[in-house]
C-alpha cells in the first residue's frame, strides 16, 4: 500500500478531488487551513479572509497502480498552480 501526500492551494481542491474520484481511489482525507512556503510563494493565514485561500493537505492511502493512473493529471495541475506531491510506504493496520 502507498500513502500519497498532496499539498496545494485549496483553490484547486475541486480539480484535485475530481481527479481522485475519476480514478476511483478507495478514499481520501482533506485537511484545510494549512499554510506554508514553497520555492516561490508564501501562503499565510490572512489569505483566508482575502479570498485567496490557504493550502489543503490531502492524504490518500491506495495501491501504486492507482497512483500511476492519476499521476499525469495531478502533476499537470500542480505544475501550473504550484503544490507538492510525495509518495511513501504504508501498511494497513
Amino acid at each position, binding site marked *: 500500500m502507498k500513502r500519497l501526500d498532496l499539498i496545494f492551494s485549496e*483553490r484547486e481542491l475541486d480539480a484535485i478531488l475530481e481527479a481522485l474520484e475519476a480514478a476511483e481511489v478507495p478514499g481520501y482525507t482533506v485537511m484545510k487551513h494549512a499554510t506554508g512556503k514553497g520555492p516561490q*510563494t508564501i501562503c499565510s*493565514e490572512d489569505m483566508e*479572509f*482575502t479570498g*485567496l485561500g490557504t493550502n489543503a493537505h490531502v492524504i490518500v492511502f491506495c495501491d501504486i497502480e492507482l497512483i500511476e493512473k492519476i499521476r499525469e493529471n495531478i502533476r499537470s495541475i500542480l505544475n501550473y498552480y504550484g503544490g507538492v506531491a510525495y509518495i511513501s510506504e504504508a501498511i494497513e493496520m
Partner: protein
Amino acid sequence: MSHDLILQNILTPPVLFFFLGTLAVFFRSDLEIPAPLPKLFSLYLLLAIGFKGGIELQKSGFGGQVLPTVLAAIAMSLLIPLICFVILRLKLDVFNAAAIAAAYGSISAVTFITAESFLASQEIPFDGFMVAALALMESPAIIVGLLLVKLGAPKNRPNGRVMKWRSILHESMLNGSVYLLLGSLLIGFLTASNNPIGVEKMNPFTDKLFYGAECFFLLDMGIVAAQRLPGLKKAGSFLILFAILIPLLNAFIGIFVAQLLSLNQGNALLFAVLCASASYLAVPAAMRMTVPEAKASYYISTTLGLTFPFNIVIGIPIYMGLVNKFIPSIG
C-alpha cells in the same frame, strides 16, 4: 487645514483601532485574531453595507443624481484600470500589470465605510445611494483586468488557460464578496419596498452594530496590513511609489468628475474614495483563479499593505481638503 482634518480623522475609533493593530505588529505583541474571525467580520460588513445601501436606493429611487452617479462610477472602474495598466507596464509584465490595475479600478468597502464614519463625525451629509456605486464598481474592474490579460498575454499560454468569456463573467460577478454585496443590496431593496417591518427588525444587526464591528475589523486590518509591509520591500520602489501616488491621482480625477456631476461635498468625498481605493478582497481572489501567473504578493502588498492604510489614515482627510476647495458647500 488638511492637517486639522488628518488629526480629526486619526482620533476616530476606527482609525485608532487600526493603529492599535499596526502597533501590535511593530511592538511584536502576540495579539492575534485567529481565522476565521476576520472572515466573519468581512462577511458581516459586506452584508450590512449591501442591505443598508439597498434600503437607501429604494428610498431615493433612480431619479435625480442617482443614475448619472452610478454610471459615472462604473465608467471610472473601467477607466482607472486602463490608466494603471499603462503605468504599470513600464516595469511589469502583462499578468502582474493587469492584476494590479484591476485591483485599483475596483474598490475597498472598508475604506468606503471609514470615509462614511469620517463624514458622520464631521457632520457632513451624504447619500445612501453611493453604496450602489460601490457595489457596481467591482465587476467591471475585474472584467477589464481579465480582458487586458486576454488581449495582452503571450500566445504560448497553456491551452487550459486561454481565457473564456464565461469564466471572465463568472469571476467578475460571482466572486464571493461581489455576490454577497450585490445580493444584500437587492435584498435590502426588496425588503424596503415590501416589508417595512423587516427593515426595522434588521436595524439593530445591520445598522446599530455596524460601527463597533467596523472597529473590530479594522483592528485586524491593522495587524494584517503591518504584516504585509516586509513583502512591499521585495516588490520594489516602483510599486511602493505607485501604491501611494495612484490613489492621489485617482482621487483627483474622482473629484473632477464629482464636480461635473454637481455632487454635494459628502457624496464627492465618497466618490473620490471609491476611485482612490483598491480591492484586496474580490479582485485578488478572482486573479488568483484566472491569472495564476501574477504574483499574489504584488497585488496584495500594494493594496493591503500600503494603499489601504494610506487612504484610511491620511488619504481621506486629504481628499476632504480637496473637496472643500473644489466643491461648493451647500449649507
